[in-house]
């Protein structure tokens, strides 16, 4: 099970990549305070004004194409860029390994009416 979202940015791929990987750019949309070392195994610290802090490790980097972060609490975020007539398509997938199990159970009719 995963959450997937897509958006088209009206900018070239290089610029979209910067928005996803440069801390000062990530601070515009992802979190209020960002530290990120965009190399495999690099560390990321994301802080929000509400006091929430999340730590991540860079799982893989494919320049201008794909960035995968693994959260230290749960799950994984995959950011993918592809060419699009209107600019650059950004695809986000956030997954946690056990979600599928919980949802399969939740979906069972016997369980829902228990």
């Amino acid at each position, binding site marked *: 099970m995963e959450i997937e979202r897509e958006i088209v940015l009206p*900018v070239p791929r290089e610029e979209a990549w910067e928005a996803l990987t440069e801390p000062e750019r990530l601070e515009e949309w992802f979190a209020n305070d960002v530290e990120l070392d965009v190399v495999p195994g690099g560390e990321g610290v994301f802080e929000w004004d509400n006091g929430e802090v999340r730590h991540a490790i860079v799982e893989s980097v494919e320049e201008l194409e794909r960035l995968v972060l693994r959260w230290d609490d749960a799950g994984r975020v995959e950011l993918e860029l592809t060419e699009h007539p209107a600019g650059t398509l950004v695809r*986000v997938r956030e997954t946690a390994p056990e979600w599928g199990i919980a949802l399969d159970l939740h979906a069972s009719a*016997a*369980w829902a009416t228990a």
Partner: protein
Amino acid sequence: MGDGVGAVFAALADPSRRYLVERLAHLGSSTPTELASELPMTRQAVAKHLAALEHAGLVRARREGRQTVYRPDPAPLRDATAWMDRVGVEWDARLEALARHAAGREPA
């Protein structure tokens, strides 16, 4: 992730415990003795798994005479799905902000 949701996922990570939850959902209620009779597991092992599930809030135990009867409780799974909904809403908001900033940088 909240502790409650983490405990739910941890409890369900074990295949035997998943099976027990599914059996309880199907049966409505059962006892460790009854569940052990249909599984390649001792009553003690079943009781241990049920205790872990109870700790995560996925089953409720009630003493009935000499037996402890277990019933499933779907409430924590609703918390888990609520958590997923929240992650989706967070991404909607983030990507909207990303698009806004990207459009702002677009040369006129």
